[in-house]
């Protein structure tokens, strides 16, 4: 494999912990290559935002269930009755294209 050489500089004081780690590692090229690949392939802030949004959205519907109890399934039968009536009224009005009382 043709080799390409790079050099870089560390601060003897500020980066002493990095220098210590490098000194103990048997294959610096493999270490730096792996670190750089991990750095360049890390997810962007936008990727993480999308993942976080997905998780938060999923958590909104999570129920905490005590041991020995079963989770209640949210169906029309277990919905708050007044809200269902209000929603059905709005569905009929939107179907007609009317939104005022």
């Amino acid at each position, binding site marked *: 494999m043709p080799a390409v050489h790079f050099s870089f500089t560390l601060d003897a004081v500020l980066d002493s912990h990095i220098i210590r780690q490098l000194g103990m590692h048997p294959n610096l090229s493999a270490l730096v290559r792996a670190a750089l690949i991990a750095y360049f392939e890390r997810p962007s802030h936008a990727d993480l935002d999308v993942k976080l949004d997905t998780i938060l959205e999923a958590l909104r519907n999570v129920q905490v269930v005590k041991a020995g109890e079963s989770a209640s399934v949210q169906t029309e039968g277990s919905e*708050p009755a*007044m809200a269902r009536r*209000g929603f059905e009224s*709005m569905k009929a009005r*939107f179907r007609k*294209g009317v939104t005022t*009382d």
Partner: protein
Amino acid sequence: MISVTAMDIGFNYVKGLVSTSDRRAFFPSVVGEPFAETFSMQSAKTARLTVTVDGQVFPVGDTAMKQSKHAGGALNADWVLGQTWRALFCAALSDLHKASVETAVVVGLPLEDYTALEARLTARLVGQQFAFKRNGGNHQTVTVKDAICLTQPYGSLLDQAMDNGGHILNNPFATGLVGVCDLGGNTLNLLVCDALEERSQWTRGDGLGLLETLDDVARAMHQKYPGITPQAREVSSWLAAGEFPYRGTKHDVMPIAKPFLDPLLDRILDRLAEVWREPGRFAAVLLTGGASVVLGTVLKTRMDGVYPNVTVAHDAQWGNARGYLKFGMDFWRV
């Protein structure tokens, strides 16, 4: 079982969701002038968003902002009946559906425009076939089997009041008297619902929005920081981040934006006091809409103490679209 397509085509951004997959459509509401397809556009394939509608190739979203000298978004309320809206609709369909399909569609309108435009918009969707071709893709035809048009803030409320399956939750947004303050680019929607039914006496919409203020901030930035001519959309993202880049360093955006944001906040609070005269009746108030990403926290600070349980919607710019999808999942029970 028919799929539901939820489409929130706002003055600022297009947001689209579909019930059958986790695909999303999200791009600026900008359509450029139609042009001839070039080799570079063809070779760019799906990376550049263009759609061919009625034989014309339209650059859309970020592609329109980069490729076209005369990119333009929405100017008037009745843009929903025009070619720009249709091109945005087809571009979003191309993001959400990868083949020719039949679907039911939920869209929304600002409160102010609902009565005048709802019937005409719905008539342009129901039973229609939308034929288009995305850059690098195949010809598609999406048939709209049915369509419903909601008011935008009702979508935001449903997002809080329903679960992801379109079932009503047992929470204050579903069961209480709730105010929804939906602040968009060119709209301020004030909706009040009691157990999800609209109370029209406290419901108003008008043209007060963030875009005009963003233009003012952009002009002030151009004057104070030579060498940049920001667009309103850029300023919006800088306000959300709290800082902006200039000559390689980050600067605090608030000192220059605050003199313009404060009068807008005052006008919003005046409007709230005028329409919602009895704040003690409310169980909760929801702050939502794309502009609440920028103004929500400041607005909440000034509303706390007057209104109970003021909540800034999480990920507010998606609230309408998520609510439309939940409505559709109940309406067509998918």
